[in-house]
């Protein structure tokens, strides 16, 4: 398992965000889930686990690096 911080793709009322665990703010905001998931792939290539959440906050999928 990666020792790097996990990165989360989270639904917000006005779009989707990519947020690293422990960060105060989201790194970026997107209009669509697809754009957010695409952006999160960059983190995965750098060795972070990526967790994509459903709109209710539970887990849709977990990509372990």
């Amino acid at each position, binding site marked *: 398992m990666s020792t790097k911080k996990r990165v989360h793709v989270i639904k917000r009322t006005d779009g989707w*965000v990519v947020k690293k665990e422990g960060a*105060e703010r989201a790194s970026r905001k997107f209009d669509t889930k697809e754009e957010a998931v695409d952006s999160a792939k960059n983190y995965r290539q750098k060795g972070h686990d990526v967790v994509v959440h459903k709109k*209710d906050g*539970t887990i849709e999928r*977990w990509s372990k690096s």
Partner: protein
Amino acid sequence: MINHFDRNVFINCPFDHEYRLLLIPILFTLRYCKLVPRIASERLDSSEIRLDKIIEIILESKYSIHDLSRIKSSKKGEYYRLNMPLEIGLDLGCKKFHPDEKYRGKKSLILEGERYSTHKGLSDLSGADVKCHENDAEKVIECVRTWMVEVGRHYVPGPNMIWDDYNIFYAVLSDEFLKRGFKQSQIDTLSIPEYLKFLDEWLPKKSKLAKAY
């Protein structure tokens, strides 16, 4: 359980699987803001009469959240659900009629799933402020958070911060319980006491992580 009257929040809501997706974020928001959720399922003792337990919780709680979004029957032949209206009646009765003056300061949040639906079925509540969560987890967090500000809680983090941390906590919880031998479906239906125990262990760690970042 230690009695924290000024921090206890009586939760009057359904306990079915579908509603759990709203109940868990409500519990998270309250604990995140240092309040103590009190619900009938907080301890399981088959010999305890449910109504007695609810009355005890009402007497020990300054705050209450009543979710009336599930009182209407959803299909033909199904009964409407009267537990929530009964319990809001008990709580409001306690506020109005209990001889101890401290109960006059009770504060309630009434929630509904569809705007103005509460007043159609419970017109006696006309004029009461009812917040609508639209059966959405993020919105229910916002409703609870806004209410906490309205009742004068001093430190209440922003809605995005609570919502993001709720999502992150769900992943931490899943990761930990998968390691402990649970299936994801069992984690999604974890008992409320177990969920709250793990949340109370995580919250101080989360604060330290945020400071170190």
